């Protein structure tokens, strides 16, 4: 569904704006606003360094990276009574890590105490993922005739089975030769299964590849809250400001704070990944 609507929104914009339109940089005066705390945290079912990142909002016109929030007390609790204490990275401020393996079917609670005493909490549940069946590659004939980038005209083809009896939400990430694709900072690939048939056979990926590229795709299970967050995030990143689409607003977040100072997402996911080398069967 999201794919359809996204497609539609882009078309509407293209149809309207490509007739005769231009855009230019402007610098409206922006109001001052109080700072909020931004959490991005992921717990997976892999035995790995799980992370929590804490940053803050910055003024719109500020330049450069936004520094992280240091010296917070960060821990995650599961519903079996285990507590995982996170330790701040000595190099990158605002990143907190600890190694453990999450389990499907468990509820996890994030608990952060900031140096100024503010407490941020969040809860998420780990759903299972059906996983990807396999990946393949194929020549895209249209792109081969007229490639945007020399030699890049191979599609990733995705094979998967969508369980029809459960309600599932997914997030997908794509890596090329080990580098994550972030689509200039605008593309997010997530989906519900509302209108998806059971067999996905040879669905094209979002990127064109060259011969010999190593392509990896990750599939994360999402809770409904996390799905809603990504859907909202997509609207904020790709909206038109509210003319032909909705007025923008902050993504609905599962980060709780008594003063309503939390933004971001605490995501608990089962993950599956597959790789393929383009040109190798």
């Amino acid at each position, binding site marked *: *569904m999201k794919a*359809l*609507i996204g497609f539609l929104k882009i*078309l*509407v914009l293209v*149809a*309207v*704006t490509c*007739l*005769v*339109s*231009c*855009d*230019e*940089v*402007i*610098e*409206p005066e*922006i*109001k001052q*606003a109080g700072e*909020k705390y*931004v959490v991005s945290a992921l717990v997976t079912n892999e035995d790995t360094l799980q992370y929590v990142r804490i*940053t*803050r*909002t*910055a*003024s*719109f016109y500020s*330049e*450069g990276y*936004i520094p992280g929030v240091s010296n917070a007390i960060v821990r995650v609790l599961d519903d079996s009574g285990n507590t995982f204490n996170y330790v701040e990275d000595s190099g990158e401020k605002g990143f907190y890590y600890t190694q453990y393996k999450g389990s499907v079917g468990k509820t996890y609670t994030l608990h952060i105490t900031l140096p100024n005493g503010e407490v941020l909490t969040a809860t998420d549940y780990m759903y299972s993922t059906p996983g990807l069946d396999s990946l393949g590659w194929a020549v895209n004939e249209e792109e081969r005739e007229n490639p945007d980038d020399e030699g890049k005209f191979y599609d990733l083809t995705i094979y998967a089975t969508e369980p029809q009896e459960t309600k599932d939400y997914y997030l997908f990430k794509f890596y090329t030769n080990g580098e994550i694709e*972030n689509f*200039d*900072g*605008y593309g997010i690939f997530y989906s519900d299964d509302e*209108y*998806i*048939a059971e067999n*996905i*056979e*040879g*669905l*094209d990926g979002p990127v064109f590849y060259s011969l010999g590229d190593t392509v990896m795709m990750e599939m994360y299970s999402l809770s*409904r809250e996390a799905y809603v967050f990504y*859907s*909202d*995030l997509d609207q*904020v990143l790709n909206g*038109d*400001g509210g*003319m*032909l*689409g*909705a*007025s*923008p*607003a*902050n993504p609905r977040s599962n980060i709780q704070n008594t003063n309503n100072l939390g933004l*971001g997402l605490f995501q608990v996911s089962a993950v599956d990944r597959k790789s393929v080398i383009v040109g190798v069967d």
Partner: protein
Amino acid sequence: MRLFNFFLICLVLTYFKSYGQEKITLNGYLKDGESGEELIGATVFVEELKTGVSSNAYGFYSITLPKGQYTILFSYVGYKSIVKEVDLKENTELNIELPLEATIIQEIQVVEEKDEEDPIARIAMSRNEVDVEMVKKLPALFGEPDIIKTIQMMPGVVSAGEGTSGYFVRGGSADQNLILIDEAPIYDPSHFFGLFSVFNADVIKDSELYKGGIPSRFGGRLSSILDVRTIDGNAKRLAGSASLGLLVSKLTIEAPIVKDKSSFVVSGRRSYADLFLKLSNDKETRENQVYFYDLNAKFNWKPNNKNRVFLAAYLGRDVFRFGNDFGFNWGNNTATLRWNHLFNDRLFSNTTFVFSDFDYQLESKAETSGFDWKANLEAFTLKEDFTFFINPKNILTFGGEASYRKFSPGVIRPSTEGSIFANLDLGNRYALDYAIYAGNEHQISEKLSMEYGLRFSIFQNVGKSTIYDYRKAENGLPDNVNITILDTTQYDHLEKVKTFTNLEPRLNVRYLINNRSSIKASYNRMVQYIHLLSNSTVPVPFNTWTPSSPYLDPQIADQVAIGYFKKLNENAYEFSVESFYKKMRNVTDFADHAILLLNKNDAVEYRQGTSNAYGMEFFLQKNEGNLTGFASYTISRVERNIPGVNNDRAFLANYDRRHVLNLVATYRINDKWTLGGNFTYSSGRPFTLPVGKYNFEGYNVDYYTERNGYKLPDFHRLDISATLTPRKSQQKRFKSSWSFAVYNAYNRKNPFTIFTQNKEDEDGNVIEDGTKEFRMVYLFPVLPSISYNIKF
């Protein structure tokens, strides 16, 4: 109920008063002498009694007078008046054909006496007529005249920006306007996403916008009625017109079938921008299709003066196709069958059957993701309207209507063998809709007249449908994150789901200060039972409508307005100032981030609240002389307060514009040349901009604190045009003209929208350090256009 009683008493009194002496009725039709088109709002004035009536929407008039001899003046703007001496002994039928003024230079006869359609004397306020002949002389985008663009310049009307067909009347949203073409509703009036409207200026006879004091015969929308009527077709001879433009061309043919008995008109319009795409070197571009067309057809038959039958149809569609893989289209189809019947000299009846359909389709033939997506809304309406000419002091209109509507928000089918899409049917929604109404135009004294009326509306949401009881979140509104269905109720075909009833009182009062000035006041309650599912500022054709239901209450508006109307400078100018206050309840809005398309749980996204609008409108119009046109200035404010939106705080509506100034003029230099110009200024509309930003997993995300906390830059634009009508020989009927226009003459970059993006360097590469920038989108630069028009 008190109001209803008052209404009844007035009616009864009226009836008894007319009972006493012997009365004779004079009636008939007023027509254009050249084409046989009926004249709407033409005046019939009885010199001896200093009283008169005007012809109704079908050119029919009826006046009941005591026996006697009278001098009757028939007049209409732009036509020569005709005076008839009548000896009324028995009921008399008198059909009049008014000849056109030979030339505009000829002195226009100024009728000093009261004239019902005169804006000072008529009871109604808050109405604007759009003179389509003037619209044709005004500069237009790509040279295609568009009445909607002129409506957007009327006092009390606001536009969200250029290139849109949406308009906002007195603080109402774009879906609160009822748009009628020959009484059939148009659910989306846009072509090319709003660059053009569905109205082909060549077939429009008359169009009027009702903004307040709306008569009881209209209902169903909160803010305005746009009543557009098309021409009937020349009843005397073959005639036609054609126009060749840069983007759009059109052809109209009209002719009698049996002279003065039956006639038809057919008009077609098509854009052909896509033909230029065929010139492209790129194969893919050549295969793209982008066009729209309209077809208007009308047949009318007048077997005798007691019966008239009209059949009118409109078909219009936009088609977009990108290569072989993807395409979409949308369109309106309407049909109107009308039967006008005179039961007796004083009772005029109009029976109408209306069909209206709006639909859109999207299709993709991509191998692994092919789909067909269809959505539509269809409505059938049967209406009966009566006009009873009780006496010269009272005209009673009454009637009723019944409608059946089917809303189909979406059906998706996979269209290719290996498509990842499953079958999806969102299910249809059905509604039955009834109304009865009565209204009386009542001349109480020489100076005081009233038009009072009442409408009783009933709306039923009926099956077949499934209604869910959704769990509410802590704030008492449906939880749209964790959607939980507590209970499910099934309804059979036509089984009642929920019924709504409302009484809608309407009132207009006019007090004549003297022949040149009057004051007026009005009140109306309007109820809107259908809701547009759109959270954008400007509706797009892929929005769907939904009925009032257990999820959505009917929207209700109460509006009061007062106004002062004056003629200046030997009646060359009409001036008015009106002030309004409008309170709207249950206005439909949507939760932040609402997904309204293809969402079977869209009900959890509905939010309803209140909206208050008030403002003042100044209007100066000049109808005579070489310079004609109008100036309008509106100061207004509209705020919304919707629980669940903007953290429950009030916010300015997307279409709130504090100041709006419009100047529209045509200047006739000589027989050959006419100049036209539009100037529009409006203060920037509210807009949501971020106050900050943050980084989430490599995405640079805007941070918001409130909705509509900023204003877009002001909007202003000047368009100019010139129409050249080469001198024609006297014998020939053939007329031709050239229209030249420049849109946005001083090349103003007017804001369409503002979006944010990661800052880019001069080569367009993203600077990946989290720095962001605002970009303003603006649409049309200076755009010249030319079109060639013929008429025969």
